């Protein structure tokens, strides 16, 4: 019996690990969107983060540089998005899509020389506790520091948005940039900062994939996770805690359906593969039914170009 329990614990640990990139990317994008900017380039920023993290790890042999570098590269590529949408006032949707396409192409180009190189082992914390405590051990211990950070992030984001002055200003800008500007808030600066933060988080999400989750470089290794993160933000109605729930459900069902495929259930594989997407959307729609709350959480100016009257 204890073996079964331990197995379930390991399963839960695996689910948590698989949801980390989604939590990181979605939490970053959530802040960006709360300021009224719709950045569809999440997938592109993630994959750039993945390749630059991996490349830096190979070149410098230092995981710290690799992680910081991946965040910086995500930040730099989001700066391009910021320049275009905030300073040159291009359309958010078109620019974001271009950013994704650019990111995927760019990462493939850089990554050509890194295919097939083995990754480095990433230090996992409390590894002895993981093995000595059945069931709870594999859930709570033996993870990378990035996982612990990711699971704290939605709560910190929630606190930041609701309780701090800066969070209030970000929400105000997302609600009405014109009013914010008339109140003397530098809308462009706020939006730039949120875009850069979102970019850094997406970069980190990418690095988690290439350094920890599957420590190697494979072309297109984000595999649409950026799009899932984007969808999570919307279906979670811009609530950080619901993003966490959504990411766990998605990760959970992804892992479970893989096990179901392995067992050989007589359900078409395609249906099983579609299951995480369907279930995540259903659950998030059901827990976010309160139309009043949706209205209050939705950044009213999302995707609108703002320019100041002169």
């Amino acid at each position, binding site marked *: 019996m204890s073996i079964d329990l331990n197995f379930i614990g390991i399963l839960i640990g695996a689910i948590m690990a698989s949801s980390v990139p989604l939590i990181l990317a979605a939490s970053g994008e959530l802040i960006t969107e709360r300021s009224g900017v719709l950045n569809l380039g999440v997938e592109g920023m993630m994959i750039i983060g993945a390749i630059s993290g991996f490349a830096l790890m190979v070149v410098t042999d230092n995981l710290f540089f690799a992680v910081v570098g991946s965040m910086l590269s995500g930040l730099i590529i989001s700066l391009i998005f910021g320049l275009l949408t905030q300073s040159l006032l291009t359309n958010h949707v078109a620019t974001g899509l271009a950013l994704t396409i650019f990111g995927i192409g760019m990462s493939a180009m850089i990554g050509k020389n890194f295919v097939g190189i083995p990754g480095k082992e990433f230090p996992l914390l409390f590894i002895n506790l993981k093995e000595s405590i059945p069931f709870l051990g594999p859930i709570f211990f033996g993870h990378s520091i990035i996982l612990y950070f990711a699971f704290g992030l939605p709560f910190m984001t929630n606190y930041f948005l609701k309780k701090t002055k800066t969070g209030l200003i970000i929400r105000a800008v997302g609600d*009405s940039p014109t009013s914010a500007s008339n109140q003397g808030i530098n809308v462009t600066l706020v939006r730039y900062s949120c875009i850069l933060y979102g970019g850094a988080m997406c970069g980190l999400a990418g690095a988690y994939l290439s350094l920890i989750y599957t420590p190697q470089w494979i072309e297109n290794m984000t595999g649409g996770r950026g799009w899932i993160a984007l969808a999570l933000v919307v279906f979670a109605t811009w609530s950080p805690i619901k993003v966490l729930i959504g990411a766990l459900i998605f990760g959970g069902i992804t892992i479970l359906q893989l096990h179901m495929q392995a067992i050989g259930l007589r359900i078409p594989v395609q249906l099983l593969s579609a299951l995480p997407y369907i279930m995540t959307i259903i659950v998030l729609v059901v827990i976010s039914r309160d139309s009043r709350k949706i209205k209050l959480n939705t950044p009213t100016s999302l995707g609108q170009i703002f320019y100041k009257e002169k």
Partner: protein
Amino acid sequence: MNTQLKVSKISKIYPGCIANDKVSLEFESGKIYALLGENGAGKSTLVKILSGVVKPDEGKVFLNNESIKLNSPLDAKKNNIGMVFQHFNLFETLSVFENLSIDSDKKDEDLRVLVNDILKKYNFKIDLDIPVLNLSAGQKQKVEIIRCLIRNPKVLIMDEPTSVLTEQETDDLFISLKQFSKDGILIIYITHKLKEVLSLCDEVAVMRKGKVVSVSNTIDEKIESLANKMVGENLNTIKKKINNFKNSEEILKISNLNFKSDDPYETNLNNLNLSLKKGECLGIAGISGNGQNELFQILSGEIITEGTSIMFRNKEIGKLNPRERREYLMAFSPEDRISQAAVPELKIYENVALNNFKSSNFFEKGLVNEKKIKEHSKKILSNFSVNTDNVELKSQFLSGGNLQKLIIGRELITSPELLVCFNPTWGLDVGAINYIHETLIQINEQGKSSILISTDNDELLKLSDRICVIYKGKLSKIMNADTVTAEKLGILMGGGSID
């Protein structure tokens, strides 16, 4: 302490328009000042300059004889100039308290105490912890005012504050403003409503076409004198000559028309009967929401009825859509200029093209004949004295009056036999109202007919040959206008009956 505010030779030029032309004005605390002018006279630009939203091209602002720089809204705040805009600058999804705390340096607890004091002092009743989107327009305005009061303003500028308020809310606002003035705040009140100037303000400056044309004490002024200054010409009170249409040909006949709506918010129409003769204006009075919308839509073809119920020039048109009705020389000017009559994001000539019909030749083989549309649009702009000759201008940049002139012009330039208009002068300033009224009288003189659905009784009595009242979807007896008085209309509009 006394506060003096002086603007000196302020100029602001936008492409194609001089918004402020060497504007100089002086204000002193203890008085309430009115800044009066038509839409587009330059009041809002001046106010935006004073609040730091817009930078002037020339000129200076002095506060207590010191020149101050107003490069951003923050500068205005630093100089204790508070501003309540016509369109609220609130964050709808944030709570009232969050809206107030966002630009305050105080601790939340201290701010709450301060706000509660203000609420008590001026007898405002607002729940601080509900989102702003749940407030009424009057309450939202109070939040804006509180936001200014928190900063101990020396100057409080109110831009067209009553345009969204009910009468009761307006009264409350005036009481508060007088109280602020007593407390030493200099108040500048921007409006185009003459009655408000006389009932609230001590001094009035009138602006026209970007210039200050007069400064005077309100005790020396009357509604007429202010109106004339505002418009710049003596307003001749037009009154229509009432004709006898006994021998004229009947152009429109509606018989036993019924309309039953599935939408609980719409009004059903019961057994409508009316007829209209060539050259006649039929006025339809009523309190809004008594079926005017539905009646307009039935006439314009937005609601299709049985073929036989509406006869226009001896043809059954009940089943025709608006475009087909235009082919039969009907024309329409709906109530909502922005969403029904024109597309604000489109350029002027594009809006003109929307009104196409077969004979217009605006489109050939599926292609847009831009040259033809532009020529046609230019003709409308000059014939109907719209205050621009740029057909490429987006319609949203036209003031209400100019947009209405454009719409009426678009409809009339095809010389229709019947014009149906619904509240054509709603929200317009005196000059534009006068122009529209003259135009409507003119078309009757040219032997064309009109139906005027309006909630403005003065307008109806001025323009109509015959009048009836719509009440709960039913039409009253149609009366000759010379036998109708405002009192009679009032009784019928309230559902009463007269002999």
